[in-house]
């Protein structure tokens, strides 16, 4: 089963603004040179939130399962990671 299909199983309420952001986009370019693609944030994310397109990180925060691993894995502590506000984001049934 494709990851996209797995993510469809989640109940989800979209937040208008992203709860994830990059502090310094230049660090991502440095990281790509150092680690190659996929960089740590891309490979550790179980929900395909991150992708590398045109020399920058693109964040699909709507996919986020709120595990926090990207923030921990980033070698430059370059991911600003907040919780979605107002009860938005995922809502698990089994947990």
């Amino acid at each position, binding site marked *: 089963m494709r*990851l996209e299909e797995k993510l469809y199983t989640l109940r989800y*309420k979209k937040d208008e603004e992203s709860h994830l952001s990059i502090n310094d986009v230049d660090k991502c370019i440095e990281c790509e040179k150092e680690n190659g693609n996929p960089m740590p944030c891309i*490979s550790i994310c179980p929900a395909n939130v991150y992708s590398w397109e045109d020399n920058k990180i693109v964040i699909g925060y709507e996919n986020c399962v709120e595990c926090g691993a990207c923030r*921990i*894995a980033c070698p430059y502590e370059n991911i600003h990671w907040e919780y979605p506000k107002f009860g938005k984001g995922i*809502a*698990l049934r089994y*947990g």
Partner: protein
Amino acid sequence: MLNYDIVVVGAGPAGSAAALKAASAGKKVLVIERGPEPGSKNVSGAMIRKDFVSSVFGDSVPFERKVDTLKLSLYDKESPVNIDFHPNQLVTTGRLKLDKWMSSVAENAGAMVISKTTGLNLTWDGDKAKTLITDRGEVSAKSFILAEGVNALLSMKSGIRGDLNTENSVQTVKEVYSVKKEDINSIFGFPDESTGMSWRFVMTDPLVAGFLYTYKDSVSVGIGSPINQLVERKIRPEKLLDDFLDKTGLSAKLKGYSLREYSAKVIPEGGFPNMNVSKGNVYICGDALGLVDPLTFDGISPAIASGTLAGTAALEGFTPDIYKYEMMKNTEISKIAKERKLESEFMSGNKAGEYINMISTLLKNWASGDLSGIRGTMIENYKNIIPDMLSFVINMR
């Protein structure tokens, strides 16, 4: 501005235990929960010790099946070695039901629980926290309890603790499949729908801890693996889970059943006692303190134990030293502190592989009646592994 005696952040097992303790003492308690309802953001196996949960929250613990068999499968390079235990008092449970129930017990004791509310920042006057700013406004309190889970953003922003790193954290992914009761019984050989099992797998190179839990009419499977290992080898966690299901034959067992939920969670493998546990009138508990038992994977019992202590700390105005001292005296919490050394050995290098190979070789020698093999294995491991195991056993007392 709303005023409370105690504000608790997070309505998981730790937060609800803290709120229950404080509200039962007659204090005005507010619990804020970022999810649409308690439990909706929380991930675990989940297997609990029913008697322990009851001892704090009372009877009528919602559960799925009794864990009649706890099976452990150790994979060395060849085939797995299986060990079966028959534990008492372990049950499987769904987090949404369990956490909602715990929260309702705290509510019945007088705590006020507000969901869909995220804590954003604490405001401080010197060493004392004054208010909590949330996405819905600001509340003031005499003390604050941070039961905010593994991504302990408030504890980190307040400078009480630092973030986890790739060496002391495990990434887990989990899938829940919908499987009819009768089918679960026939697949796993259960006599009835109240009987269930918990199955643990350990594989090495890469180090993977896998699990399977049977619920009433669903089955959960998942894997955990150290983040540094996944990052270094560029292994995607969902791919590791797929490979695990194939290697163990579980994908064949679950073939044709529909996936109901996919989730992920970071498990802390570090924290207490090697971190601050409080600052002024702010007390941390549960996953935010890294309180997951690395040997049993149980995070719910230590969450409840530490939450209850955080409630007491807020009531009594404990200093950080007293709060930490009380935690070290608690058996649920202190055993995690004692396991930290073994845990970090497991997380680094290939100690886990050495242990597993030794155990499976010993058992295979024994099964084939190869007594000289047993002797050989013991001698071979005499210098490096056996002293480690002995010192671990001694420290565990």
